[in-house]
């Protein structure tokens, strides 16, 4: 019993050390990724924290388990898709005039806001493919592994997403 307790404490300490390193390394990029996904800075911060906390729980249960950036992006994508679906059920809460308010003043370039407008028009599956392959920089094969799909399907969704984004930008232009 004592050994189990000591092992639990050791696991917790080791997991805490590893999660600290992961947070320092990936927090900024992951938070920006999630912000592009959900277009809400506060929600992005909450989701990113949830992702790291889930990673901590997993590491505490099994400290020897390798935890890659891919796992973080996969979890972040799943959390973000869940939030988008929840928001979709709830209905729109942010007026269109406030679009782009999740970006700092120095980030509000025309390209940045256009990209966000185009991303907002995508269904969640296509958005996940586009974000993983372009924003996070994964190949279609890696994105397929993260999403549990095939690389053909990922490429196909990227193609369809490009059409949708083009239509969205053309409609607002």
């Amino acid at each position, binding site marked *: 019993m004592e050994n189990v307790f000591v092992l639990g404490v050791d696991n917790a300490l080791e997991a805490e050390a590893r999660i600290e390193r992961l*947070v320092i390394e990936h927090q900024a990029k992951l938070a920006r990724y999630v912000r592009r996904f959900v277009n809400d800075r506060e929600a992005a911060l909450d989701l990113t924290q949830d992702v790291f906390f889930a990673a901590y729980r997993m590491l505490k249960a099994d400290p020897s388990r390798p935890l890659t950036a891919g796992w973080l992006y996969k979890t972040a994508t799943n959390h973000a898709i869940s939030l988008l679906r929840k928001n979709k059920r709830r209905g729109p809460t942010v007026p269109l005039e406030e679009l782009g308010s999740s970006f700092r003043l120095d980030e509000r370039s025309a390209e940045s806001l256009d990209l966000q407008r185009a991303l907002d028009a995508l269904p969640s599956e296509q958005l996940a493919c586009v974000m993983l392959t372009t924003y996070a*920089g994964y190949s*279609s094969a890696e994105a397929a592994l993260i999403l549990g799909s095939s690389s053909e399907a990922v490429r196909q969704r990227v193609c369809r997403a490009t059409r949708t984004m083009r239509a969205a930008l053309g409609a607002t232009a």
Partner: protein
Amino acid sequence: MKHPHGRFEALAGAILLDEATAADRAEFALHAESCAVCREDAAAFTTPLRGSVEAVAQSETWRPSMTDEILERIHERHTKRTRFTITTIGYAVVASIVLNVAFVSGFGGRAIDALRITPRIAYSATQPIRIEHRPKVALVVNGVSALVGPRRAALAAVARKNIRPASQAAASDDIGPPDVFDGLRADESGARNVAAGYPPVCAADLERVAVRPEPCRSMPAERR
């Protein structure tokens, strides 16, 4: 892929992500000559999707730091779990002490006895009811029921005087009424013989002489 364009959409996606080989590009170009939709897709190839998104991402300056918040949340979780564990153990210890004291002092046993309810219906519902059919000769010995009290037996003997056999009546005028308890001691065959010695009587006489046993109060009521 169910959609006929599925393969070419995948090829277009590969070109957009800059993952397509020269053969893929040639195959798509050949197809795009005869397909308006794919020609429109090919127009987007001039601005690679990945490159433009990466350029936007590079310009982002938001660098949130959440290390302290996450570590604080982890410590808070530790504290909560520890508090929950200690509270649970404390409640369990207190509950066991209370139960021990209650049973050692006898209060618990009395409380359980007070709560124990045994309805009479439970007995009749759970125990089989056995209805015995006893032969008449065993019940009525010498014209007297074996289950009656001495007072009723004496009354029955007086009533039986007039229906005794003639041989017994002649020989035992001075004997008096027969002892009821001798009849009780007689075995079944003896009782049958004695009963066979009596002359047949009419139903009215039997009604008058036979004494019905009183039902025992501890037995459940007869079901109809």
